[in-house]
């Protein structure tokens, strides 16, 4: 009798198949294979010969295809400051626009190199001392009173990482337009117990660099994006570098892509230029926007003593383990280089400086996660 009204009533097995089919159909988005000659914008300079350039182009396109990355920018800069730049792939998953070397990407935690440089400049100016305690900046938070600026810069503060708090991840994912207050973020972490006594251990914490940004605001009386603009970007002519969304998103800022079902119920989660949740969660620990060319230029200028005094730069490279002041020691094909890796939702980047040759390599991509160090190794090997 029951089948008379609904003669085609599906079986339980059919239900399951139906749901699996729908899930599969809506979750797949295919990236077309990228060919080296058809999708790359290269600048021509004398620092890379044509055979090396085409081999580098091949390596990058191979990475794009193997890692399912929409686009990658690479900038290689020699000790004289001359650069070779390449942009391969696409600016988005729709593949209707090629990635240009002038397009802007988020660089995540590579921001920490800039923030550290900014603080060290403020130290040179006398506004901040390296061993100044947080009690002089945030007297109401007793837990962190003995933490110093140096502890923040080399991750020896013991302050909890803001990115380890699940509720903030959930809120950032559910509300892409959420604008976090950096003071609130810092307060959340400063109210928690330290993971260890300051200076006795090291643990990577984004909160350290959020606090450094707040200190920069406090001692200059300016908003953080303006401090960056006035102290670093304008004097160094880094006109495409900015802290977004504190500064308005530039028109050529592209979207980032995360290949992760758990963020968006589909294969790809997109971090659009006008989204604010992830970048305001990062603040001065990871909200910078730039391109590979300007990134390599900043790193080159930093290590060529064009930003900081020699003595200050030496203190930046005073490593405890592999961590200096906002700088990491990174092994590339067994060579010790200085730099930082960055990852923020949808973007992955790295920038390194080889003290032996004076060469800088910067890589920016609009996808995360992927093994950026393997690509870095391959590029460096090609340069040898």
């Amino acid at each position, binding site marked *: 009798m029951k089948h008379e009204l609904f003669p085609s009533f599906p079986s339980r097995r059919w239900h399951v198949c139906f749901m699996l089919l729908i899930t599969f159909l809506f979750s797949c988005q295919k990236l077309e294979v990228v060919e080296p000659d058809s999708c790359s914008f290269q600048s021509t300079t004398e620092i890379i010969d044509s055979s090396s350039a085409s081999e580098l182009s091949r390596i990058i396109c191979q990475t794009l295809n193997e890692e399912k990355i929409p686009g990658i920018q690479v900038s290689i800069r020699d000790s004289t400051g001359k650069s070779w730049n390449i942009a391969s792939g696409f600016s988005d998953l729709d593949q209707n626009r090629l990635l240009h070397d002038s397009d802007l990407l988020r660089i995540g935690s590579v921001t920490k190199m800039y923030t550290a440089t900014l603080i060290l400049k403020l130290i040179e100016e006398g506004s901040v001392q390296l061993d100044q305690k947080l009690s002089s900046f945030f007297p109401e938070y007793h837990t962190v009173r003995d933490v110093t600026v140096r502890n923040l810069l080399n991750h020896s503060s013991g302050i909890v990482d803001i990115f380890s708090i699940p509720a903030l991840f959930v809120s950032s994912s*559910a509300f892409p337009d959420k604008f976090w207050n950096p003071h609130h973020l810092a307060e959340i972490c400063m109210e928690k117990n330290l993971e260890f006594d300051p200076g006795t251990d090291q643990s990577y914490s984004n909160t350290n660099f959020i606090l450094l940004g707040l200190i920069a605001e406090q001692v200059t009386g300016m908003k953080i994006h303006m401090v960056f603009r006035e102290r670093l970007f304008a004097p160094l002519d880094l006109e495409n570098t900015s802290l977004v969304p504190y500064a308005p998103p530039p028109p050529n800022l592209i979207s980032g892509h995360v290949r992760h079902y758990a963020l968006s119920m589909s294969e790809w989660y997109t971090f659009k230029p006008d989204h604010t949740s992830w970048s*305001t969660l990062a603040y001065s620990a990871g909200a910078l926007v730039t391109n590979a060319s300007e990134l390599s230029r900043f790193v080159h200028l930093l290590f060529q003593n064009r930003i900081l005094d020699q003595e200050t730069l030496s203190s930046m490279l005073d490593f405890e383990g592999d961590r200096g002041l906002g700088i990491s020691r990174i092994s590339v094909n067994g060579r010790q280089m200085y730099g930082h890796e960055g990852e923020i939702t949808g973007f992955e980047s790295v920038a390194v400086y080889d003290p032996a040759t004076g060469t800088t390599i910067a890589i920016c991509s609009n996808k995360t996660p992927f093994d950026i160090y393997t690509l870095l190794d391959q590029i460096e090997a090609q340069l040898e």
Partner: protein
Amino acid sequence: MKIAFALLGYIMFTLPVQSQMANRDAEAPVARNTISASFGGAGIYYALNYERLLVQHRKIGIGASTGIGTDFSSALFGREFSLPVGAFILYGKKNGRLELGAGLANYFLKQYDYGEDRHETAYRALFVPSIGYRYQKRTGGFMVKAGFSPVINLGKASQSAMPWFDLGIGWVF
């Protein structure tokens, strides 16, 4: 989000059939009120909920729920909260039943105005469908449930769909 619509379509497609089938089954005395604590669902984080079973006919039960949800850890507690409302359907004759739900999370988001250095409370409506398993005796007592409940933000500037879950424990009376 497309998957959520597909899920809804699936629910709408199969419910009339399930209802027809349930009419043939015997009915039992029913406890209609539930107080529960949950994690996930339309409460987004932790929530305290009240549910009322409005209709119980053979295998099918239809009810409505409301509650208040927030993050009781220090991160968002006291700053952001959700007032979830929803409707649900229970299907099954035994104590373990299929639960299908459609929830609306009336979420009050604390937004920071960076230029003005002040906070404002912004309202966001989140659609939270759910499908899951619920154990509860018809006559009352202990209740536990677990389900899949994606959070769908339909806001113009904040469209997103986040896979999420709904875990609950409560008392039926």
